[in-house]
Structures are given as C-alpha cells and as structure tokens.
C-alpha cells in the first residue's frame, strides 16, 4: 500500500467516487462492494492519485469508472495480469484488482493461479454472484450444480470451483470472505487485505438480484467464521475444504514475502517514443 497522507481535511469515502453513476440493477450487491472499497480507502487515507483500481470485463468490472483513482477497465480475464504489471512497474501505488467470478475464475482462471503463486503485493476483490449477469444469466464456475434455469435446465451438474481453496493451494498470502449485505465488514476486510503484504484475495458474496433473486436469502445464510484467522496453511486448507461457503472474515493470513523485483530505468520515455516512431 502507499504511504498514508497527512491531510488538512480527511478523505471521506465519497471522495473516492467519480461523477459516473453506476448502471447496475438496483439491489445489486456490487453497490455495497463499491461502498466498501471507498470506505476502505478512506479508512487507510489513501491518496487517490497513488491508488489504482484495475478490472477485466463483467458487471462488477465496471468499478474503476466509478472511482476517481487511477483505473483500467481491461480485457476479459486479464485484470490480474494488468494489476501485476502496474504494481511491478509502480510499486509506490496501492493496487486493487476487482471483478467477478466469471472473469476471475473462468476466463481469467489461469491468471488467478499465477497471481496467487507470484504473491505480488496487491488486493484482489472478487464479487461472486455465481452467474454471468452481464450476458444474461449463464452459469459461472462457482454456480451450484443444480441451479435450474432456462439456459441450463436441471442445472449443469458440474462441481463448482472453490476459489478460496484454490487461492490457498496456489500461494495467496491473505484469504478472506465477506458478504455485500454488510459493507462495513467488507470495508474492514478490504482494508486489512491492502495492509497485508503480498497477494490478498477477498471474495465477496454479492447477490445478483436480477438473475439469482434466490441469493437475497444469503442474508440469513452468512455467519462470521467461528475461529480466528490462521497462518498455518494446512489448518486453513482443512477449514476451507469443510466450510459451508458462507463463513465470513479473514480465513488465512500468511507470512510469505511478496514478489517485487528491483528494476533500474534503462530508457527514458523520450527514447522509447523515438524508438517507437522510427
């Protein structure tokens, strides 16, 4: 994370929001996640010009446009590759990568594995609604096998992807789960993820009220994890493999050193421009 500024007046959560109004469906959990991200930034007093919000494609990936930090609405599934590049090139920036379950675990699944493995110091917030909302309701990697819809009568019958287990097995240094219905708790998780060195993965259960109205019931399904976060990967693996998918809180906080290669500048921007033009 970048160094906190000492402002004459404090950054409030609204100071991180742009003038662009979100076009998500009213009731969408992503509104709460946007709120949680801006609250986390305010808690950390991050300077907007020292913060980058990077995304791929999907409903939730619209989020960079709704903040006034540096932003990049990238290519489908490639948000983590972009975020990695930004952080490696500009380690002084706080990098938050955001997106959905389809973007992150299907199209971007391979990048997810290697971002966990590389352990670059950035925070990945996934708004998991277990459906492709933008393209009108196809099942995603995290969709339940028996979710019945006109597009998949009777359900897919496929075992869902377990992102937290995969993150742990691949080397993520911080793993947490939140629920969009509790934006304050999500803000705390995101702030903690940003503070924690290395690759932090925060899954936020974010209901899609249009294609998955049943997810409104998540309000009564989520519950705080009954045990404190562990730094023991084996113990965390056992917990994550056996949890019900609705435990919230920090579930693993490791101590692996982040990957941050040191570079020296070999060419100036002018030299690059000249080489490019010739």
């Amino acid at each position, binding site marked *: 994370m970048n160094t906190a500024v000492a402002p004459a007046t404090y950054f409030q959560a609204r100071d991180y929001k742009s003038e662009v109004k979100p076009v998500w469906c009213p009731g969408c959990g992503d509104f709460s996640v946007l709120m949680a991200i801006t609250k986390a930034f305010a808690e950390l007093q991050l300077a907007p010009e020292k913060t980058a919000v990077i995304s791929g494609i999907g409903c939730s990936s619209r989020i960079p446009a709704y903040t006034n930090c540096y932003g990049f609405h990238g290519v489908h599934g490639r948000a983590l590759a972009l975020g990695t590049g930004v952080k490696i090139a500009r380690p002084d920036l706080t990098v938050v990568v955001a997106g959905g379950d389809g973007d992150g675990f299907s199209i971007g699944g391979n990048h997810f594995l290697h971002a966990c493995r590389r352990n670059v110091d950035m925070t990945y917030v996934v708004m998991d609604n277990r459906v492709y909302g933008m393209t*009108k309701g196809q099942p995603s990697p995290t969709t339940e096998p028996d979710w019945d819809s006109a597009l998949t009568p009777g359900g897919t019958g496929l075992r869902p992807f377990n992102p937290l287990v995969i993150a742990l097995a691949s080397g993520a240094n911080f793993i947490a789960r939140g629920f969009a219905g509790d*934006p304050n708790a999500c803000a705390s998780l995101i702030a903690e993820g940003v503070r924690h060195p290395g690759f932090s993965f925060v899954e936020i259960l974010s209901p899609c009220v249009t294609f998955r109205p049943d997810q409104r019931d998540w309000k009564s399904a989520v519950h705080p994890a009954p045990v404190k976060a562990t730094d023991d990967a084996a113990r965390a693996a056992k917990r994550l493999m056996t949890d019900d998918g609705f435990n919230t809180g920090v579930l693993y906080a490791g101590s692996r050193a982040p990957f941050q290669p040191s570079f020296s500048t070999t060419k100036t921007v002018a030299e690059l421009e000249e080489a490019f033009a010739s």
Partner: protein
Amino acid sequence: MSKEPRKAPRRAPRGVNFTPAEFHAHVFAMESDAAHRYDDLADQMETHNNREVAGLFRRMAEIERKHADHATKADPDAARPRPATQFHWLGAEAPEAIDPLDLHYMMTPHHALTLALRCEENAVAFFEHVLETTKDAVVREHAKHLVEEEREHVQLIRKWLARYPKPQDGWDEDPDPPVYSE
C-alpha cells in the same frame, strides 16, 4: 423488495460507554453514512428512470447532509475517519443506513418511505440506548436532544407515508423484464 425490510437486531453495543468525542464521531458517521447512502440510492433510481423515488432519496440525502455538517460544526474531529471496528451500533451498520439489497427498480414512494421510517426508528432506538446507558453528563444531554430530534423525524416521515398508501400486489411486475432466461 421481496421482503419487509429488516429491523436492526436489538443487541447492546459491546460494553460501550462513549466519551463525548466518541459519541460525536458516531453521530457524524451515522449522518454522513446516511447522506452518502441516500445519494447512492437516488443515483440508482435516476439511472433506472424512477424519478419520483429518486427525488425522495435525494431530499433525504440533503437532510442527512445538513445533520452531518451540524455534527462537524459542533466537533470538527468527529469527521476523522476511523476503522469500522471502532464503531458500536445496535446492528451491523449505522442506524440510518438503508440496506442497498432492499432496493427494486420499480419500487414506489411507499417502499422508499417505509425504508426511511425504519432508519429513523433505528436512530431513535440507538440514541435511547445511549441515553439509558451513558455515565457521561455531556453525552447524556446530547443524546437526549437527539432522541427528541429523531422522534420528530419519525413523525414527519409517518406524515409523508400517509400520502402514499401501500401499493397492490404486483407492483413489481414488469411486462418487459430484463431477464432473458425466464
């Protein structure tokens, strides 16, 4: 909007006896969070062309913003950002924060005012709790004033609500829904 909005759970804040500074921070956080939230809700309704409800939320945001400004005039340090863990509410969130998951793009002023009424009632309950439990004379005096103020807001919203009776079942039926798969 498929269900009635939730009532804040009536659990006591964890062993809190606010200092005046902590109490002012809570008042500011509650009012500014409400203003921020109402603005968000107004934006959502404007985007979906539900202008009547958008106007109502915008008006509520303006009212809450004035309250937040009032809180910082009384104590400028109240606006200093604090971690969420330093706040002790009766529920998970500040009393006047509408749950964004309770929105529907076709909601009516009746629904919006019902949500707002619940927020004001939660605020009364919060300040009553502080009033009953505080040992600090300054906090007690301030909380007493805020209980009265929030009770007035409850009455005001009830008056507004009387103008908008509950809509009949089927208010959320859209002849051209955005759901391809159904």
